């Protein structure tokens, strides 16, 4: 019996000022799965991810995280399981890299306690895995975008999560970094048995990395299946309103979308 | 490092307070009018501190300054070890409370009439053991006052101390008393407080025949140009006086006689 990292049942959500984004969405995400969510702007991808992170409460529906109702967990309990990588990352105050990664240990801290040896070890490990060890004492705003992203990833890893929710983290990276990140995530996923849910605009990236893809259009559930079944000419045209050419990637055998 | 700090504290407690080789009577005046009275009684040798606004007579300017009227330095006052501090209500009520909490004797000067003003001068004289001298001073002031010709017809006067908001003098002020004594009618003589705040509408309504201003914004030009003042008698007949020295009128000191004489002179020639 497969364990489901997420079971979303009959999700209904709308922001107070606009139309409903989800009208009874139901999906299941398996443990250790690499799950992609794609769709045009405004289709509700980020909203869905935030709901899965426990940051937004839906009007109706249940969200189960490893069979627990996600909204009956405390933020600390959620933070020990979910690592959320937000779309925008602003740093008004100039923290050092180490300080930021250390913040990932917040769910494990007790009141009135100091930083423990274990905390420091995990922080170091996280920084090693993301290749940010040399940047420890640098101020976050001095780093390049790629370095910043890796620091945030290190912070998330310091949370020792079982699930990663990543919101379009490749948009600010060049192609080399994108590939490097995806490979890094693959290694981490295998090493730590992570479940990854990730949003992207890059259809080819989703095609190559994901086990399954959810395709959303505004308020509508289009399909949730393996890349071959989702990245089809008719579905893509219906949702993105542009006619694509679908070929097969020579190396990965996954669909290759050309516009 | 800590040790040194504690030594300091220890030393403070061991160090004896300064011995008093000074004269027995030491007086601080926080009221310019009282400063004038002290000098008028020839008791300035007992005056050890006053405010920066105590400017009459000239010698008063040379006395040690403890600060301004609203927020003088409590420390300076207390360090002078005064036997009595003169202050006024309600402006200096806070200072009075603070000083009394520090066990400093205070005397409140707030005369509401000429009679009270004269009584105060005598009381002040008593502090210096110069009651006789004070009585003589008061008698001479009363004599001078009596000599002044009263003004025949009752003229209606508006006294302005400030413009925004307009502040005038009310029932409980010695200047109001003086005006009544001279035969003038203060149009706001019915107002409760010593320096009540009024509105321009009220001034226009009460239609004074004369306007006397004691502040820089009260120049004749300025008053004439005020909205709605065209109907006021004082404006219509050009009876606005802006050139008087406020110290002769707003201080409860002997110089108020000078003020009285000036007013008498001004109105002597008025029909």
């Amino acid at each position: 019996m497969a364990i489901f990292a997420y079971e979303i049942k009959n999700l209904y959500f709308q922001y107070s000022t606009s139309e409903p984004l989800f009208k009874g969405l139901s999906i299941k995400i398996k443990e250790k799965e690499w799950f992609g969510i794609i769709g045009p702007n405004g289709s509700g991808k980020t909203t869905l991810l935030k709901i899965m992170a426990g940051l937004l409460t839906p009007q109706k529906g249940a969200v189960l995280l490893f069979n627990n109702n996600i909204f009956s967990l405390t933020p600390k309990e959620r933070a020990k399981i979910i690592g959320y990588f937000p779309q925008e990352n602003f740093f008004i105050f100039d923290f050092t890299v180490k300080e930021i990664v250390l913040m990932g240990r917040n769910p494990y801290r007790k009141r009135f306690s100091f930083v423990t040896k274990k905390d420091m070890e995990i922080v170091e490990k996280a920084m090693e895995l993301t290749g940010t060890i040399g940047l420890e004492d640098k101020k976050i705003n001095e780093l390049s975008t790629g370095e910043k992203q890796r620091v945030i990833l290190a912070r998330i890893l310091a949370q020792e999560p079982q699930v990663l929710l990543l919101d379009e983290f490749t948009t600010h990276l060049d192609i080399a970094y994108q590939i490097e990140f995806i490979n890094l995530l693959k290694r981490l996923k295998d090493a730590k048995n992570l479940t990854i849910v990730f949003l992207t605009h890059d259809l080819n990236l989703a095609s190559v990395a994901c086990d399954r893809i959810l395709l959303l259009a505004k308020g509508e559930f289009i399909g949730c299946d393996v890349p071959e079944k989702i990245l089809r000419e008719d579905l893509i045209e219906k949702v993105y309103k542009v006619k694509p050419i679908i070929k097969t990637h020579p190396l990965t055998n996954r669909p290759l979308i050309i516009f | 490092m800590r040790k040194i700090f504690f030594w300091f504290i220890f030393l403070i407690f061991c160090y004896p307070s300064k011995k008093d080789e000074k004269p027995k009577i030491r007086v601080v005046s926080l009221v310019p009018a009282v400063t004038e009275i002290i000098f008028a009684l020839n008791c300035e040798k007992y005056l050890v501190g006053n405010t920066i606004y105590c400017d009459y007579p000239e010698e008063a300017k040379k006395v040690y300054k403890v600060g301004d009227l609203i927020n003088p330095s409590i420390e300076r006052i207390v360090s002078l070890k005064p036997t009595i501090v003169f202050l006024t209500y309600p402006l200096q009520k806070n200072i009075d409370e603070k000083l009394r909490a520090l066990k400093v004797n205070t005397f409140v000067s707030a005369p509401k009439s000429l009679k009270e003003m004269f009584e105060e001068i005598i009381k002040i004289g008593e502090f210096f053991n110069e009651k006789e001298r004070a009585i003589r001073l008061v008698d001479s002031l009363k004599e001078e006052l009596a000599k002044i010709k009263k003004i025949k017809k009752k003229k209606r006067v508006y006294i302005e101390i400030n413009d925004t908001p307009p502040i005038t003098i009310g029932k409980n002020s010695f200047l109001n008393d003086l005006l009544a004594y001279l035969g003038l009618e203060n149009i706001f003589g019915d107002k409760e407080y010593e320096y009540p705040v009024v509105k321009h509408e009220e001034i226009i309504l009460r239609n004074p025949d004369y306007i006397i201003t004691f502040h820089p914004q009260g120049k004749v030009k300025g008053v004439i140009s005020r909205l709605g003042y065209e109907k006021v008698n004082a404006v219509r007949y050009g009876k606005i006086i802006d050139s008087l020295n406020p110290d002769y009128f707003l201080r409860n000191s002997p110089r108020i006689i000078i003020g009285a004489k000036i007013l008498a002179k001004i109105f002597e020639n008025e029909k």
Partner: protein
Amino acid sequence: MRNRKIIEIISLSVFFLLIVFLSLFLGNEGFFFDKTIILNIRLPRMILGFLTGGALAFCGAVLQGLLENPLCDPYILGIASGAAFGVSFGYFINRYSYFVTPIFAFLGAFLAILLVYNLAFYKGKTNKLTLILAGVIVSFLFSSLTMLLMVFSKRPLTEIIYLLMGNLAIVFNKLNLIIFIIVNSLTIIFLIIINSYAFELNCFALGSEVAESLGVNTKKFMRVLFFLVSFIITVQVAFAGAISFVGLMVPHLARFLFGSNYEKVLPFSFILGALTVMGADVIARSIAPVELPISIVTTFFGAPFFLYLLKKNL
């Protein structure tokens, strides 16, 4: 690294002792040692300056992180305006005994806090922007109410200006000494409690969504900190008036010297704030025959100093 820490601690201690010495022993004509003056006048001033300066800087730092806004100062929640209104009201109804003034300040500030709380935390939707807006609205409201009182008052309320500009010339009698000790003991306890939240405050400074994803219960966090900080600031304003500039700028100085980590910024803001206000008070009461309101000193000397820091940073 170690050496630098030792140098920092030593120089801060030296500064501290120097300022304590000056606070207690420097008079208008130089140094003199008079027991009554030192115990009854200088010591209360110094203690008030220490607590107020430290607490204001500490709370300024907290609010800057809580509201994710480096331009926050402690009065952004409308507390100073509320306190000024309370005191004006007291004067208006002829209750203006010096020793009772802090109580009116408390009442006014409490009213302001209640209003801000209801505006900002209404319906459970807590948002940094709403909190700032609520604070600004309440500030304006109470400022205009205070001005209204001044207009309708039968006598001019000039003393309010000194309240608004900060004044450390405190004298104790039995009543206000007891109140002072009680509320400041609570203040110290609250400061320690908030300091234990420094780690969460770091997370919060990255944004409330990020903070929530890191396990911070943002709703509860905001409410608890809001209540504690409001209380502390109210106590300071009630006794010392509104001292400007310290709460806004000292945290930045602390960050400049020690980095943005709140575990360092909070305690150092307190220490630097205390030193600043104590030092400013020494200047305020020694410079002219007239005692300067302390905000003038803090702003006059603080502004160019921070311009200099700004230049250095850029």
